[in-house]
């Protein structure tokens, strides 16, 4: 394809504003898919994406579009996720594009990830095509939403499209605008190759598959290439373009988006953000890469059944091949045995990894309460990173504990400002300022400890604002504070997996509520269970789960025997989903009790 007829763009928006649905319409109108292939949010092809109705991974797809001028264009579209946990997927997609379609749901207006994704796109110098979506909905406020976009983009907003991604209205005009407004890719065909790896995945048959955008030159099958950062050389086994499936071709030209298979064995060899160059030109300048992403929350993952430790390791290894954003390393816990400490981008990411492990790899898991990464300055002047409360050094050795502080922005209609401020203050927020976006919407700026945000902060905001508040954040700094470790003891034994690092002022309340929640979640059993919360040696809360008083079915005659066996089987299965701790059995949910403390 002639370079001037290529358009590379992505669709960005706040979660649920209709990105994947718009992609459906574009695929339809360009006849990329047959009607048999069509289904809702067709690019969301992972089971979890389909079940949850959200996009988790960015998806690239190529379309052929015949413009109003009768000429054919090659469109490379990347559909991106909207959830804040997956912002890094957006930022790497942007680097492969010249333009971005920015969708705003007219029933919701501008929300926090609208702003943050727009800023990302602008900082990459992308052309923005703003669209108001869901205009078919009766409650849509099209003109109000437009005004918000104008306020946001300012002069840059020359034309805003009114579309319904669901019904297709306005999409034709949008396709035309993509041709007209988004520039074709630059880059020089005659140069040596430079291509950006913007994503990669592991396929058990083909090894690593890299998704790339050719910036200069071209790549062909059989060519010898080099990965800039690892300096390793490979031969291109297969190269091609992305439809719903991969379609092999002979060559990818300057400006094109496609995939590459080159006998790369491990994902770590094909780092996302790396540049592919000619094998015989090792001095070529690399393209600007990405800021490496950092796990934000950490949690211990343990198999319920100790025999499954090796299975869990295998599963993590395989999962990590397809999800470079999560990290893990071995960890042992006196209470839970052998397991792994894992790092995630956020709670949704953690939930998804956990669900995939249980579902795709069939390992029953205990997940410990997520926590953030702390820095501990010891009396000896050494700074230690602590990703697990259990690893906090003894109090006497600690000079100070520092925690990650975020700079957060909460976008909210004016009438909910008060309630959102109360939520932020309750989470140890430090108020910075309020910025009015227009007469009815404000952006509240706060400094917030990450630890206070990881557990249900967003849900809280949503619930006090009838769903209207949205939230975005950036890491600011590590800051010292009066933090303590709160331990949980079960029948006087320390259950390390339930320990938390918490602000001193909140510890009393937390201990009481956590003990209360555990009492609800730990079922009656043969023996009494005493639950205590303690800071150091001082017990601050205590609850008791009384033992069974009666547990026996009354009748057991001929016809009852099979039935009773099934009943016992079920009780036994229930036990298997619990962790044996001394003579106490603790259900899986109890380890995440603190997440449900308000239920």
């Amino acid at each position, binding site marked *: 394809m002639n370079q001037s007829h290529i358009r590379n763009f992505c669709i960005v928006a706040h979660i649920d504003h209709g990105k994947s649905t718009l992609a459906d319409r574009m695929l339809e109108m360009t006849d990329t898919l047959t009607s048999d292939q069509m289904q809702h949010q067709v690019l969301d092809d992972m089971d979890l994406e389909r079940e949850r109705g959200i996009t988790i991974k960015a998806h690239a797809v190529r379309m052929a579009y015949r413009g109003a001028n009768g000429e054919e264009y090659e469109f490379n579209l990347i559909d991106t996720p909207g959830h804040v946990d997956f912002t890094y997927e957006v930022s790497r997609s942007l680097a492969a594009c010249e333009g971005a379609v920015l969708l705003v749901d007219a029933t919701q207006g501008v929300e926090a990830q609208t702003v943050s994704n727009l800023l990302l796109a602008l900082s990459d110098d992308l052309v923005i095509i703003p669209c108001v979506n869901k205009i078919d909905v009766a409650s849509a406020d099209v003109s109000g939403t437009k005004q918000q976009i104008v306020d946001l983009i300012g002069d840059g907003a020359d034309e805003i499209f009114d579309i319904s991604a669901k019904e297709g209205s306005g999409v034709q005009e949008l396709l035309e605008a993509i041709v007209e407004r988004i520039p074709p890719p630059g880059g020089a065909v005659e140069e040596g190759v430079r291509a950006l790896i913007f994503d990669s995945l592991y396929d058990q048959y083909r090894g690593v598959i890299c998704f790339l955008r050719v910036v200069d030159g071209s790549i062909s099958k059989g060519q010898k290439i080099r990965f800039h950062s690892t300096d390793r050389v490979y031969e291109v086994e297969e190269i091609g373009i992305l439809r719903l499936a991969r379609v092999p071709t002979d060559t990818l030209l300057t400006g094109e988006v496609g995939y590459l298979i080159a006998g790369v064995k491990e994902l770590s060899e094909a780092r996302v953000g790396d540049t592919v160059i000619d094998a015989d030109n090792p001095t070529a300048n690399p393209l600007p890469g990405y800021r490496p992403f950092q796990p934000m929350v950490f949690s211990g993952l343990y198999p319920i059944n*100790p025999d499954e430790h090796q299975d869990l390791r295998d599963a993590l290894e395989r999962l990590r091949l397809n999800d470079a954003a999560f990290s893990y390393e071995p960890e042992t816990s006196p209470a839970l*045995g052998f397991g792994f400490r894992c790092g995630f981008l956020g709670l949704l990411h953690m939930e998804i990894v956990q669900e995939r492990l249980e579902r795709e790899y069939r390992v029953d898991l205990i997940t410990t309460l997520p926590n953030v990464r702390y820095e501990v300055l010891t009396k000896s002047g050494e700074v230690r990173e602590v990703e697990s409360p259990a690893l906090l050094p003894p109090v006497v050795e600690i000079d100070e504990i520092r925690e990650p502080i975020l700079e957060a922005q909460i976008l909210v209609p004016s009438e909910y400002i008060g309630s959102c401020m109360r939520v932020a203050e309750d989470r140890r927020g430090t108020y910075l300022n309020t910025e009015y976006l227009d007469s009815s919407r404000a952006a509240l700026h706060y400094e917030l400890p990450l630890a206070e945000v990881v557990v249900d902060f967003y849900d809280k905001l949503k619930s006090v604002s009838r769903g209207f508040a949205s939230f975005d954040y950036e890491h600011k700094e590590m800051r010292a504070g009066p933090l303590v470790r709160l331990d949980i003891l079960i029948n006087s034994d320390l259950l390390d997996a339930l320990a938390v690092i918490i602000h001193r002022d909140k510890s009393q309340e937390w201990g009481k509520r956590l003990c209360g929640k555990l009492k609800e979640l730990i079922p009656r059993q*043969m023996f009494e269970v005493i639950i205590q919360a303690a800071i150091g040696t001082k017990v601050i809360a205590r609850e008791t789960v009384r033992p*069974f*008083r009666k547990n026996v*079915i009354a009748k057991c005659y*001929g016809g009852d025997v099979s039935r009773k066996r099934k009943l*016992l089987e079920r009780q036994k299965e229930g*036990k298997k989903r619990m962790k044996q701790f001394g003579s106490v059995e603790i259900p899986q949910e109890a380890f995440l009790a603190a997440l449900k403390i308000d239920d």
Partner: protein
Amino acid sequence: MKSLGLYAHFPFCPCRCPYCGFTVVTGKDDLHERYATALCNELEAIARLAPAEGLASVFFGGGTPTRLEPRLLERILTTVRASQGIAVGAEITVEANPGTTDAARYADLRQIGFNRISIGAQSFFDQGLRLLGRDHTAADALGAFRASRKAGFDNVNLDLIFSIPGATDEDWRRTLDVVVDLRPEHISTYALTLEEGTSFQRRARSGDLPVVCEDDDARQYIGGLERLTAAGYEHYEISNFALPGRRSRHNWAYWTGGEYLGVGVSAHRYVDGRRSWNTKDLPDYLAQVEAGSSPTEGGERLDPAAATSERVWLGLRTCEGVKLGRVEREGLAAKRRMTDLVRGGFVQLEGDRMKLTGKGIPVADAVSVEIVTVIEDLARDAQRGPDPPVP
């Protein structure tokens, strides 16, 4: 040859009690004759499996067997004699319901050959019977007991239900007082169970029926147990009490791995290590048997591990506990879960038998699950070596 019992099921009842989960039909009394014939056909169709001296026990249960005219019951019992044989001195029980059985009927039953009768008294307290939705009064229950004595039954069981929603500890005590005075040879005390698909269960779910809490249930159970043992009854199974020598031989077989035949709709049998059961659907049952085919609907044979587990949890329900082999004993004794149970005072090892203690009895199921879990661990260890050490 092992001894063998026979259970025959009679699904007919005048009306369905709101807590009853048995296979029961109402308003189908026109089918009595056909049903009796079908039972006889089924009895004749099964091979003679009883040892030479005949069946050791026969139990006509229900439903309400006494809904059938005595001549029909007699015909069936005669067919049992002819097809399997009944041993001299065998226990031959029939269940009777105080609401539907007049005095004369007891004499007939005795005369036909039943030597043990089980009366569904449930409560000797009118309010309790009303709460249960029974169609008889305490006076009827008393009358039934006296009639059975008069008819010459010297082996009588009374079924009682406690933990009736809305009834008090005091109500239960009064029922026990009456029963102890009557001094039947055998007493069954059942905690009211909310059976699947019953109107009690639906009402409890919708909050329309107060649910008796675990502590109240435990108190009434233990109260009954203490009262009856003090009165000279042997507590020989979770829900069963007997004067010396009067345990139900038929039911004992259920808990100790004994074999039994089962005929009639929904009946279960356990023969040659295999359990099987008949269809629960009366028209289906009749149609199958009348067409000369087997009414058996399903069956199972337990693998050795499951069989061991079953032997253990069934045995633990009885006062004699379960006999363990030396390997089992030593294996169990080495497991922390097991020693916790022994140290916690739930089970005791007496020679080669393992039994529940007074503390273990009310929580027998929970103890059984523990022990069965340990037994399965042992089986697993045997296959692939012991657990790795815990860090």
